[in-house]
């Protein structure tokens, strides 16, 4: 077993792999996913679609599966987590890798609501709808890497999938302190935060998380949300939804039977969890 870490998809990836060959396979896998799903690579499949004036596309297998995961996210959250908010992300200034994002002088005009669908590998979307696969792609990539035996534990930007019963995850709050330690074991876990990717747009300080109900950066009292579920991509969907639900996030997570546990870091630094959440000492 080896431990590796590298940069991919604009974030830190780390994994525990059965051997060197599996580790190399894992790096290649993340490269493939990035080439299909990145908003920031000019020649990626997603960038070509987002630039296109067409409205219907035959997708590669990878992009189709990630888009289908996005479709599932929309269903599970009644539209609250929507990969079609890309135009909102771009209009509010996050149209390049975060290190290059600059403040906007003024708020952009309100964008139209996302409109897209996928049937098998065919994507249909309105011209003003751009896809942003972001965390969904990271979680999905970790899931597939572990399911295909490239790793026993894979993490991309805190979206984690594990088949090792000993895996414990320290949840790090926006101030760098450990808010809780979760004995993840076998399953998925993801943290979504509005504390790290922030910039100014007019008189507002905004985050990268766009609320599809307003097509503006979310306003929420939750600094970060962590969700445990059977897979990393489900955990990612749940974490984003809890953030977007704000005050009602934990109540919503308690009623969602596909979510095993949820932890939020409140804006004042308090840490709350759903009943039944197990934390390590």
């Amino acid at each position: 077993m080896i431990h590796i870490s590298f940069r991919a998809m604009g974030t830190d990836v780390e994994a525990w792999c059965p051997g060197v060959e599996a580790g190399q396979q894992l790096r290649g896998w993340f490269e493939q996913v990035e080439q299909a799903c990145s908003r920031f690579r000019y020649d990626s499949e997603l960038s070509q679609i987002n630039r296109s004036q067409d409205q219907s596309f035959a997708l590669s297998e990878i992009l189709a599966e990630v888009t289908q995961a996005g479709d599932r996210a929309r269903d599970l959250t009644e539209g609250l987590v929507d990969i079609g908010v890309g135009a909102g992300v771009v209009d509010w200034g996050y149209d390049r890798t975060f290190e290059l994002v600059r403040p906007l002088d003024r708020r952009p005009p309100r964008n139209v609501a996302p409109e897209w669908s996928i049937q098998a590998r065919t994507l249909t979307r309105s011209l003003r709808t751009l896809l942003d696969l972001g965390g969904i792609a990271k979680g999905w990539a970790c899931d597939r890497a572990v399911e295909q035996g490239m790793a026993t534990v894979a993490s991309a930007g805190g979206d984690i999938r594990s088949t090792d019963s000993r895996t414990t995850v320290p949840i790090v709050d926006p101030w760098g302190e450990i808010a809780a330690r979760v004995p993840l074991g076998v399953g998925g876990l993801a943290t979504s935060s509005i504390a790290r990717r922030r910039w100014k747009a007019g008189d507002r300080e905004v985050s990268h998380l766009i609320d599809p109900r307003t097509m503006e950066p979310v306003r929420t009292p939750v600094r970060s949300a962590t969700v445990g579920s059977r897979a990393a991509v489900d955990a990612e969907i749940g974490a984003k939804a809890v953030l977007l639900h704000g005050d009602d996030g934990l109540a919503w997570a308690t009623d969602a039977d596909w979510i095993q546990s949820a932890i939020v870091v409140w804006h004042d630094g308090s840490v709350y969890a759903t009943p039944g959440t197990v934390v390590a000492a």
Partner: protein
Amino acid sequence: MSRFDAARWDRIVIWSAAALAWGTAVIATSLQTPNAETAPPPATVGEYSELAPGTMPRPTSKGLVILRFTPDGDERSSAVAASAPTPSTPTALAAPEPASSGS
């Protein structure tokens, strides 16, 4: 026949009132000083302009678990941009411990 005349009673009342006022002032000062010393710096407008008001999450139908409680007014003044260190050496292989801080 009283042992004290009217003037002496006046002095007793005046000094008692003065002592009571002084004592009250001392107690009030001692209660305020620690608060002033421990009060955190106010949050900057820019940092919290996006945060909607709310004292705590709405409880779930099964209750709410509090893992760490920071009372109102004890707002954290700054957030770090970097994630926590993650294990990077083979010695961590005994038990995987990937950190999760969000991106």
